[in-house]
């Protein structure tokens, strides 16, 4: 293989990126060495099995990926601002929209949500960790190295360029020769395994590790959404595993699954992809709904309206989400019978979502509303998401969809539901739970600047796209002609994108500023919260709760505060606490997956087999593992509790 095939050459921007990557790596090594932090990094972060730390690592990755996905978006918007621009040629444009979509959904939204899930759920249910802490660490590192593998593609070997949906026959070897789409198949496979493990982990955690007295119908709404999301993950991700494996076989081993000859069926890919793909979007939106439920009830200072209906609707949404997938390809030719059935199921799924919107509105009604940043994001979600939702119902009408499909109308729809739904929720959740994660609050003034810049920018960017779609502008086009009348709205959209970028910069500044000057959270309960995570210190002691709380009612902590002034811990009740040991194996096994994956991408099978052998070795060592964790003695608990109260 020539160097010019291995490294991506000939592009000034790519060379700049190469330099930036190398400098960053040198910078990191230098800082760690200068401050003598290698041991700290290994002991505190790379080998941790603590759900709170794992959650923080997920969120850091998500914010970094939001940056990269956002830069991709700005590049696309730059190219489309005016007709016939030569900023990006077709090949580069294809690579950029592919990485934009893949990164935003799989490496930004998923880890952000999984990160919040990790930090919050064990605390909300009064548990000390998840059911399988070691597996949890492995999940994170698999995600991390899968994301790493995907991210280096643009400088080594070449980006995937067949869209985040990687349709065949375009994604086949015949039409996409080169390693780009191999990266897609293999990196997503590695990350996907991590996600599947997370689903299993949280399902068992929520079912079996709730504090005594916390029946299912007394769980916080965020925990409910994570329970249902975990079910979706467990049943949807294996479908992706198979689809990606079949893609890998076609691309690497010349099988005939999605080929155009010898019996292959290209369209089968779209079918399998979307059987996973539709539940996937519900996997990112249900936790968002959970976050909004928490934030809205906290800052309206009212119990969430219609708890049972909320639970019923998320169960309904989850059930329906597996039987709507064909709406992603109404135009593929399945015919009126198939299209009609899926049209109906798709419209049906809007109903439970509507129920939830009304419940949030009723929660707000007659509440004493506090307009914190988290609350602003949640309030903005309601009208903006509804816009996305109703355009979804428009798209659900199969006959009408023949006009809308893959136009900018579709792009506007899904950005309205994904950004106003998932991204707003991630920002709301970040502000809401930030003090719990780091012990200090994010600055409210800066938060509000971010909110207004981003929220207005988002509407300025994407609302025009509905009209561009109706005017005939198609998705994934790298340029367009003069004289079509599309230019003014494209200019407006670019302005909106720039505003969103500015909002993101303010957010980054907020994170830095708050780390230095931010208000410290002394009580552990900065918002007068309703659920158990607010009964812990900020950040919580590593074992979360000194004694397992006993739960009497919904909004467990609120009730505790009313009845007994808070979460009282009597020293006589203290017992030694069992904790799982740290382990470096999840990290090393994920490295082995990376090596094996990299080998497969380039068809260097010796390397792939070597990596696979290390994975097996890791499993064998795990099987013989005799380390059962350690105990924290009562004296140590007392010391830790006193330090938490004092330092707080």
């Amino acid at each position, binding site marked *: 293989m020539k160097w010019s095939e291995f490294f991506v050459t000939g592009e000034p921007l790519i060379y700049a990126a190469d330099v930036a990557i190398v400098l960053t790596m040198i910078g990191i090594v230098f800082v760690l060495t200068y401050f003598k932090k290698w041991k700290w990094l290994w002991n505190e972060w790379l080998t941790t099995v603590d759900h709170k730390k794992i959650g923080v690592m997920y969120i850091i990755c998500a914010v970094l990926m939001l940056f990269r996905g956002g830069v991709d978006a700005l590049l696309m918007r730059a190219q489309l601002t005016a007709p016939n621009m030569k900023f990006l040629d077709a090949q580069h444009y294809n690579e950029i929209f592919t990485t934009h979509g893949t990164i935003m959904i799989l490496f930004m939204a998923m880890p952000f949500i999984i990160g919040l899930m990790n930090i919050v759920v064990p605390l909300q249910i009064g548990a000390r960790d998840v059911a399988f802490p070691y597996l949890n660490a492995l999940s994170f590192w698999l995600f991390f190295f899968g994301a790493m593998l995907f991210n280096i593609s643009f400088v080594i070997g070449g980006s995937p360029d067949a869209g985040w949906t990687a349709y065949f026959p375009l994604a086949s070897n015949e039409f996409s020769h080169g390693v780009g789409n191999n990266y897609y198949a293999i990196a997503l496979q590695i990350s996907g395994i991590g996600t599947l493990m997370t689903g299993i982990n949280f399902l068992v955690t929520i079912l079996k590790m709730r504090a005594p007295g916390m029946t299912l119908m007394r769980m916080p709404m965020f925990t409910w959404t994570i329970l249902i999301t975990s079910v979706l993950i467990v049943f949807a991700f294996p479908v992706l595993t198979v689809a990606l494996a079949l893609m890998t076989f076609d691309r690497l081993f010349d099988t005939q699954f999605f080929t155009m000859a010898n019996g292959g069926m290209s369209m089968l890919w779209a079918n399998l992809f979307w059987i996973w793909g539709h539940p996937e979007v519900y996997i990112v939106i249900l936790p968002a709904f959970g976050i909004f439920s928490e934030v809205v009830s906290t800052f309206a200072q009212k119990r969430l309206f219609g708890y049972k209906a909320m639970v019923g609707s998320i169960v309904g949404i989850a059930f329906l989400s597996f*039987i709507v997938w064909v709406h992603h390809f109404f135009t593929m030719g399945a015919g009126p019978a198939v299209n009609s059935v899926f049209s109906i199921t798709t419209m049906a799924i809007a109903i439970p979502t509507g129920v939830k919107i009304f419940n949030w509105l009723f929660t707000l009604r007659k509440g004493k509303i506090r307009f914190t940043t988290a609350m602003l994001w949640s309030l903005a979600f309601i009208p903006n998401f509804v816009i996305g939702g109703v355009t979804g119902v428009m798209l659900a009408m199969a006959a009408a969809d023949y006009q809308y499909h893959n136009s900018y109308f579709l792009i506007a729809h899904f950005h309205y539901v994904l950004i106003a739904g998932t991204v707003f929720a991630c920002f709301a959740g970040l502000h809401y739970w930030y003090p719990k994660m780091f012990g200090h609050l994010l600055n409210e003034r800066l938060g509000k600047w971010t909110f207004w810049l981003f929220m207005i920018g988002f509407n300025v960017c994407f609302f025009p796209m509905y009209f561009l779609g109706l005017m005939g502008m198609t998705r994934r086009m790298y340029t367009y002609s003069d004289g079509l009348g599309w230019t003014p709205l494209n200019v407006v959209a670019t302005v909106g994108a720039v505003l969103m970028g500015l909002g993101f910069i303010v957010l980054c500044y907020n994170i830095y500023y708050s780390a230095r000057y931010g208000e410290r959270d002394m009580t552990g309960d900065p918002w007068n919260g309703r659920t158990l995570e607010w009964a812990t210190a900020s950040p919580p002691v590593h074992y979360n709760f000194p004694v397992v709380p006993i739960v009497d009612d919904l909004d467990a902590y609120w009730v505790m505060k009313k009845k007994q002034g808070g979460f009282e811990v009597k020293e006589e009740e203290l017992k030694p606490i069992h904790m799982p040991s740290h382990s470096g194996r999840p990290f090393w096994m994920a490295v082995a997956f990376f090596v094996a994956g990299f080998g497969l991408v380039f068809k260097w099978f010796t390397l792939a087999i070597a990596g696979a052998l290390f994975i097996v070795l890791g499993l064998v060592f795990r099987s013989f593992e005799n380390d059962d964790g350690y105990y924290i003695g009562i004296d140590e608990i007392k010391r830790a509790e006193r330090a938490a109260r004092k330092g707080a």
Partner: protein
Amino acid sequence: MGANSHRESFPWKHIIGFVLSLVLTFAALWVALSSGLPLKAMIVIIVLFAMIQASLQLFMFMHVAESDSGKVQTFNMVYSFFIAVVVVAGSVWVMQFVL
């Protein structure tokens, strides 16, 4: 919790499960290869036999309903089966338009 299940003196459940599985296997073989039934009926019957055998083994061999989590485990298997039917039947139905 089925604490009695391990106090059995003889593995009756397993033997019955094994014998019935053998019966269903050979019955399906006969239906497919020797019965002379029309194709559609044949397919329905052998699939039915497969589902019965699978359920049998879930209960007799795997003790799916045992333990505190027995209800969750059973529901999990039922839901998995539902997903499997949706994925398999759904894919065959949706993709049949391809010539």
